[in-house]
């Protein structure tokens, strides 16, 4: 991808400075494309969620703005832009300003290491998976600091709840992906997808079903979604950590949360569902499917996981806080550890199978 662009723009120039400049420009263009498309998807994820939830609750959802309500996300965005920006009198102002930015920036930065289709990734780094963990733990700062700096009991409680929840479930999330790392033998997300394509079942979800189960649940908790949305439980804490935020700062939290969901769905799709590839036994039976571009498979998998998010949201009631903690520590972490042991043993003794 880079070479093609390089030869297209560079016109065979050999000056190293010009070459570096062109590299920088290519990266900037890639970032612009990825961020624009991701934010568009995030906007429509809210629309998709409202439609799905409405259908599950026997309603029809947004219909007024544009054909079948398709312009609803833009209307919401414009409304949020023109709202009054209120700052609590006792707020710690710099941190109050900064925390939505941290939250949103951490979510957006994670996009940098996700390969959307073969060869298209902003930063093809060797520790891609660790980078994603790092960014998801940085997102917790935005939440905790917003809760603390708003000087409100509801926000503070939401922030504290969220901090302990995110820290606890991060362990389960990290451990659940260790099985995938062992099987793929790499932390690079593109390598993980390629390893899955070489694997007979084509997806790691079949041998790694335990890891998949743990990851999906931990991902729900990491993004503060139902049934683990205690930090923002509306019936207890008004809106949790962003109670005091309004206007555009609120919109940043909102966008950050949905970007986080998109990223979690992408990780599921890349690490467990084969990313942009489809299993070989499928293409053996139906060869014409191999002509479908990889990005389509990737997006289909991402949206399937997103749909699962909404499905869970409209199905399950919220857990109590102690139940949330005991699920995390007493069920998910031991399961993930067990999965690591099993995968390690299988990798050591059955080299041909894995």
């Amino acid at each position, binding site marked *: 991808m880079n070479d093609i662009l390089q030869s297209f723009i560079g016109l065979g120039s050999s000056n190293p400075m010009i070459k570096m400049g062109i590299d920088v420009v290519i990266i900037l263009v890639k970032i612009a494309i990825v961020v624009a498309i991701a934010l568009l998807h995030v906007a429509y994820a809210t629309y998709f969620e409202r439609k799905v939830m409405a259908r599950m609750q026997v309603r029809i959802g947004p219909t007024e703005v544009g054909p079948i309500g398709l312009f609803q996300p833009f209307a919401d965005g414009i409304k949020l832009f023109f709202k009054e920006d209120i700052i609590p009198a006792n707020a710690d102002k710099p*941190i109050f300003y900064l925390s939505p930015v941290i939250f949103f920036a951490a979510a957006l930065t994670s996009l940098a290491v996700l390969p959307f289709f073969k060869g298209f990734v902003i930063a093809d780094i*060797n*520790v891609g998976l*660790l980078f994603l963990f790092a960014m998801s733990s*940085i997102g917790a700062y935005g939440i905790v600091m917003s809760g603390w700096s708003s000087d409100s009991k509801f926000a503070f409680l939401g922030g504290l709840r969220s901090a302990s929840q995110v820290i606890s479930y991060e362990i389960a999330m990290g451990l659940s992906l260790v099985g995938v790392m062992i099987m793929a033998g790499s932390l690079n997300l593109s390598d993980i997808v390629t390893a899955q394509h070489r694997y007979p079942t084509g997806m790691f979800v079949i041998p790694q079903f335990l890891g998949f189960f743990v990851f999906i649940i931990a991902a729900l908790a990491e993004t503060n979604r139902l049934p683990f949305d205690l930090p923002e439980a509306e019936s207890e804490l008004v809106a949790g950590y962003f109670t005091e935020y309004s206007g555009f700062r609120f919109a940043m939290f909102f966008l950050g949360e949905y970007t986080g969901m998109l990223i979690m769905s992408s990780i599921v799709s890349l690490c467990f569902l084969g990313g942009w590839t489809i299993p070989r036994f499928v293409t053996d039976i139906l060869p014409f499917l191999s002509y479908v571009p990889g990005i389509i498979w990737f997006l289909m998998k991402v949206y399937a996981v997103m749909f699962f998010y909404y499905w869970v949201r409209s199905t399950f009631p919220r857990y109590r806080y102690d139940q949330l903690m005991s699920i995390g520590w007493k069920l998910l972490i031991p399961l993930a550890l067990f999965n690591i042991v099993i995968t390690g043993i299988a990798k050591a003794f059955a080299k041909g199978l894995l």
Partner: protein
Amino acid sequence: MLPKLFFGYYAVVITFLSVLIITRKNPVHSVMWMLLLFFHIAGLYLFLNAEFIAAIQVIVYAGAILVLFLFVVLLLNLREELQVKRFVGSWPAGLIIAAGMLAIVVNVIKSFTAAPRGIYSIEYIKNATHTKALGQVLYTEYLFPFEIASLILLVAIIGAIVLAKRKLRS
């Protein structure tokens, strides 16, 4: 030239942030500056081809240890602590001690002579990927220390629970 410029940026920012951390009155602000500091140190590690350590730096230091600090700062309501004077009265003595030690160390660094180089050249690490190279050393040569480290963590978990737990009334 470019590497030196990069290093200069990191060195200035890291020093400045370290000073900010120890001079803030409000521990929450210290924690925020420390978060930024850890990112810069991770950047420095990337610059030294230690990508795995850089990732660990952000995940463990910024993602776990610092969140723990933040959590404790938030749990203890420190409104009245902010009125106390920032430094102890004898802070010039501390400054002299630290500056003296720094002078000694910097002078010692000058006479540093490099030992013979090891086998893990930059090309080797690039070929094997840093994570793999590090893992191979860790799980062969340093397997026993690794086990001890896990024991330390276990002791820390138990100790933290025992210390922080309230006595149950029964």
